[in-house]
């Protein structure tokens, strides 16, 4: 009838019920109970010999319980089960009647409850041991005795153990119901029927077991225990003598009525003051409306979130001891939390907190502060005319309304929106203002920030126009160069002249003098012309430039060049070595190099005191011989390239070119005017050009005159 699997189902059911019961409200923590019950006992068949079966019959009994601990207790059970015995096999001499049987059992059981005392539902498991007395009725004994002589039936008391579980259900503090399911096991009673050697007789094997199941239900009467706890309140406890809670304070204090309550969402601090002379280690458990909250501390901070009354309690127990009898539960006042008063309606205010510009450099300040001077305005503090400025306002509205941004420039609305892009078209100052309107507030116009000032630079590129007062010059002459420059407003024009050749007096002046003396022409006997380009570069403060140029035509018309004079000693026509240096080391290379197109003109002089005849002529001839002899150290100029004249003491300009014939023998003193007339003038005359005026008669030196001179020493 009862299998192990069936037992497990019963146990699981008890556990499930216990889980449910754990959450139920508590009752008096009963300690004693008396529980009469009624039920049914079912017996398994007993095999061996003829075997028998005890009929399933009702059972009556009573249990006395002792719940000494919170979950564990004891119980004594006395049960009576009147039944019948039936043999399972044929027994000689027996007509198979039912034999009345009576079973008594007395057990001592241990119970483990899955919920604590005082709980409405208390599922439990139980196991115990006891004795079972199996007896036959008198009639049955007589019958057996008659049919199975010499058998003497007798009652038997056997050790029996039981196991199982049940469920207790509290109706009130004193009254409850219970159901039990138990398994019973003992040696199978033989009732003294065992006979050996009597074929066909009744005999029962003594080593068989009798298993039974008992299902009962009953009423429980509870006695003793702590006072019953009411719902939402810890169970009454026994006040400890070792410590006590003197008071629980509340901050902020408030009474438990709405008019004097505290505000929700604001923390309230509770503090328990405990008298603890024996220094017990205490444990604090705070409750709000019966729900444990907070930490193990004498202080508890609670923030009500909903308006209404609530109750705070603290349960102080001695730490480490489960026995609640040592707890102390003071009374704490109930308080009333109420919602804070609604804040006053906010003021409707719109504020413009800032305006930024992109580029940021475009805002230079308030009008007037910077308008006085354009100096220093550049790309870092202004913008170029025609360049856009992106204005962005940052504002707040206490009502978070959508705002309208109207932008004004120089007092005229030029657009709306945020951000707003404005492009100053022409150079100048621009006064930008912002007016913010809240359309949903019936024209609420908020504050207007300080107007911004933007300076749009004049970015027109510079221009330059060059001019020259005289565009045709002879080499060596000067003329004036001018540049007319325009630059953007506020800018300064910087001018730089550059020249393909020549020089100017001031390279950075708008008007300057061009000097053609340094214009270089290849040495040539013919007229040459060169076009000089003068370029003026105008640069403004922004680095923009403009160029212009003008041309100057410079011409050179070679004329006779007075190369210099060589000096002679008094009364001598000898060309000294200093003069030879001039003729051979310097003049001859020129005549055969750059001055190939020139004629060498020699003009001989004498000092008036010199009396030697033809001294001026001989000086010329000796000079010519030095450059034409083409022997020894003399040069090889063609005599045809020489023209000559000798003019005696006729005075003419003396030219002491640097380093030219300025050293001489002791007989020459160049500072003596008379020495300066003992000379031969050296002239270089371009082909086709007239000889210098000092020449009275242009003479050709004949080879026959020069050859006898050889290379003069």
């Amino acid at each position, binding site marked *: 009838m009862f299998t192990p699997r069936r037992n497990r189902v019963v146990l699981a059911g008890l556990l499930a019920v216990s889980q449910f019961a754990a959450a139920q409200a508590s009752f008096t923590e009963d300690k004693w109970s008396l529980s009469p019950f009624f039920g049914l006992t079912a017996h398994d068949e007993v095999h061996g010999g003829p075997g028998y079966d005890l009929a399933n019959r009702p059972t009556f009994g009573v249990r006395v319980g002792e719940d000494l601990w919170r979950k564990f207790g004891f119980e004594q059970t006395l049960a009576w089960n009147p039944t019948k015995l039936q043999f399972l096999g044929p027994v000689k001499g027996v007509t198979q009647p039912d034999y009345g049987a009576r079973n008594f059992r007395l057990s001592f059981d241990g119970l483990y409850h899955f919920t604590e005392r005082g709980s409405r539902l208390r599922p439990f498991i139980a196991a115990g041991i006891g004795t079972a007395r199996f007896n036959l009725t008198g009639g049955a004994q007589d019958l057996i005795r008659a049919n199975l002589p010499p058998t003497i039936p007798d009652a038997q008391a056997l050790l029996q153990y039981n196991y199982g579980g049940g469920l207790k259900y509290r109706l009130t503090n004193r009254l409850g119901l219970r159901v039990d399911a138990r398994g019973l096991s003992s040696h199978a009673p033989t009732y003294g029927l065992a006979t050996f050697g009597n074929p066909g007789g009744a005999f029962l094997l003594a080593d068989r077991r009798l298993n039974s199941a008992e299902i009962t239900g009953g009423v429980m009467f509870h006695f003793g225990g702590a006072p019953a706890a009411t719902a939402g309140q810890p169970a009454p406890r026994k006040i400890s003598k070792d410590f006590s809670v003197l008071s629980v304070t509340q901050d902020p204090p408030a009474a438990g009525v709405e008019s004097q309550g505290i505000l929700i969402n604001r923390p309230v601090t509770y503090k328990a003051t405990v008298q603890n002379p024996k220094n017990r280690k205490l444990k604090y458990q705070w409750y709000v409306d019966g729900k444990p909250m907070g930490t193990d501390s004498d202080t508890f901070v609670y923030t009500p979130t909903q308006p209404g009354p609530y109750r705070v309690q603290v349960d102080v127990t001695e730490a480490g001891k489960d026995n609640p009898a040592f707890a102390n539960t003071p009374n704490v006042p109930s308080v009333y939390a109420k919602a804070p008063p609604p804040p006053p309606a906010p003021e409707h205010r719109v504020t413009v907190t800032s305006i930024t510009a992109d580029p940021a450099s475009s805002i230079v300040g308030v009008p007037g502060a910077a308008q006085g001077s354009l100096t220093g305005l550049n790309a870092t503090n202004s913008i170029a005319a025609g360049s856009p400025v992106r204005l962005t306002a940052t504002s707040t509205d206490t009502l978070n309304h959508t705002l309208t941004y109207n932008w004004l420039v120089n007092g005229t609305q030029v657009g709306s929106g945020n951000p707003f892009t404005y492009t100053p078209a022409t150079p100048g100052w621009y006064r930008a203002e912002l007016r913010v309107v809240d359309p949903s507030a019936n024209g609420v116009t908020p504050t207007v920030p300080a107007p911004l000032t933007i300076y749009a630079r004049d970015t027109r590129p510079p221009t330059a126009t060059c001019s020259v007062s005289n565009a045709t010059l002879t080499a060596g002459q000067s003329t004036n160069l001018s540049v007319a420059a325009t630059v953007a407003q506020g800018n300064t024009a910087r001018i730089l002249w550059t020249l393909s050749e020549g020089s100017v007096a001031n390279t950075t002046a708008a008007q300057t003098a061009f000097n053609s003396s340094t214009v270089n022409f290849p040495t040539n006997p013919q007229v040459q012309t060169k076009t000089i380009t003068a370029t003026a570069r105008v640069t403004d403060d922004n680095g923009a430039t403009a160029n212009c140029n003008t041309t100057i035509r410079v011409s050179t018309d070679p004329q006779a060049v007075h190369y210099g004079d060589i000096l002679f000693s008094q009364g001598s026509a000898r060309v000294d070595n200093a003069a030879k240096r001039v003729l051979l080391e310097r003049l001859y290379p020129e005549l055969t190099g750059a001055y190939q197109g020139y004629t060498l003109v020699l003009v001989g002089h004498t000092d008036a005191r010199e009396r030697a005849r033809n001294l001026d002529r001989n000086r010329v001839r000796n000079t010519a011989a030095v450059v034409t002899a083409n022997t*020894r150290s003399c040069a090889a100029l063609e005599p045809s390239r020489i023209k000559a004249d000798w003019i005696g003491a006729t005075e003419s300009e003396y030219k002491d070119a640097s*380093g030219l014939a300025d*050293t001489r023998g002791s007989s020459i003193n160049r500072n003596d005017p008379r020495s300066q007339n003992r000379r031969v003038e050296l002239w270089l005359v371009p082909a086709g050009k007239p000889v210098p005026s000092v020449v009275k008669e242009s003479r050709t030196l004949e080879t026959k005159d020069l050859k006898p001179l050889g290379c003069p020493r």
Partner: protein
Amino acid sequence: MPKFLWLLLCLLPVSRAADWQPWGPFGGSVISIAVDPSEPSHLLAGARNGQLFHSSDHGSSWSQLSFGRNLSGTVRVIAIDPSVKGHYWVGISAEQEASNGLWESRDAGQSWMQHLSGLAVESLALFSGTIAAGTRHGLYRTIDGEHWDRITPEHHSDLEDIVSVAFDPTDAKTLYAGTPHLPWKTTDGGKTWMAIHTGMIDDSDVFSIHVSASAPTQVFASACSGIYRSRNAGGRWALLQGIPKSSRRTHVIVQHPANPQMVFAGTTSGLFRSTDGGTRWTKLNSLAVNAIAFDPAKPNTMYLATELAGVQISTDSGVKVQPSNEGLHARNIRASASFGSLQFLSTAYEGSQGGLYIHSAAGWRKLGAATFSSDNIQSVAVSDGRLLVSTDQRILQSKDFGRTWTRLPTQPPGRGLKVAIGWAGSDRGLFRLTGATWKKAVTTTAPVRGIRTAGKQVIAWTNQSAHVSPDDGKSWRNIPATGLFSAAASCDGSVLLAMSDGVSVALPGAAPIVTQGIPPGTVSAVAFDGFRCEQAYAVQFGKLYQSTDRGLHWSAVDGPRTLSDISDLWVSSSGDDSLFAVVPGAGVFRLSAR
């Protein structure tokens, strides 16, 4: 080639190489020379016309260094800092002050800085970091390379032109200064100067002073009056008697760097050498020596800067010399002619070192050395099998390309002859050779400066007008052109006139018109391409312009540098489109077509 292709080719401008290349013949007058002591394979050589040449292969080849602008004058002296590689000092002496000064380069000639601006530098001496520069206006010294002090007194006429200078190698404060009139000396860095001419002929232009490095009291001085030696640091001079007393100008005297007994004297009449300290002298050659430099690593190797003969190298202390002038262009080219792939050039004022040259596939060769040694060739003309040259008053011809020369039986009258095949010009006019006689074709008002022919086109010009004949002289057209520099006739009858204020073109039968594209200014030379009749070239102050429409429109030719000056211009007659330009004093440059 089909005709249309030929026409198309004519319309295309000739694409030219990047730059003018010196062409030769190389050589010329070299005035100064120096070897880089820290890198003896590197040499500098200075010439006239502001030309400075550099060699990095012991003088085997040369290339010109640029000062950044064209300089005139003579690169008179060169010194190279022995302690800093590529640190050059170059002294220039010019008639134009802008070129004068001492030029310094610290990057081997890539860039230059001018010191002593405007002063003609005649001499230079280095003593460690101290530099002394003799100018025509005193002697200057620097001890830091930047700040210069004149250390000869102002207004001292005898210490004005310092033509030579030398340090005592043991004392930077002791300097010798040579002037055109005797030497001077200071022992206190120029605070006081003393004349040191005892024993020296009074009229002595002291070209060179050399202080012996091994015995600093022994000093040599070269002057026009002879070579002097002092054994007491200039206290007394002795005229060395062992050298011939012929007239010469001893430009340089110097000791062999490793053998003090060996002394060299570079003179206008040749190189002399003494091996006994100056007592006896031997003439080694007849080169006119301007300067001498030694290879410090191989002291027997010496470099001679010569007049007209360029750089000469000797590896045996002067006994034998070899010219080494590849790339060194300091020739004085006057006349040119082109015939097919043959080019003819003549020099002027180069005496026996110059003359008439022919360039063929075999390179340069000198023609008729003896014939022209004493004559300056005025012009050259060439035709098939006939070569003509003119000197001042005569015309010679060769029918074997210069091997033999004969004087024409008859000569045109006048001087300054210019010659073309069948034509001659002089200061008397233009003449035509008819048979064996010269007949005047055109009477000119000025000497004929040049004659060019192209087919039947003949053009002769003076500095005032051009005379053009389209029919080989049967008819003439006179085109007045004031300031005419040069003229050219194209193969289709057009005429270009290079004038002092620009270039004009006269198309056949039309009056000259001003062309466009060239700035107003002097055009010194023009040329037509003999094969592409419409292709023309012009030069303005050294800058090359090109025209593809007979000279009506011009454009600057990008790429080639602006030369200092160009006196003559012609297109190769070989058909390779090469362009040749004569730069006065700097030889011939070639611009190759790409």
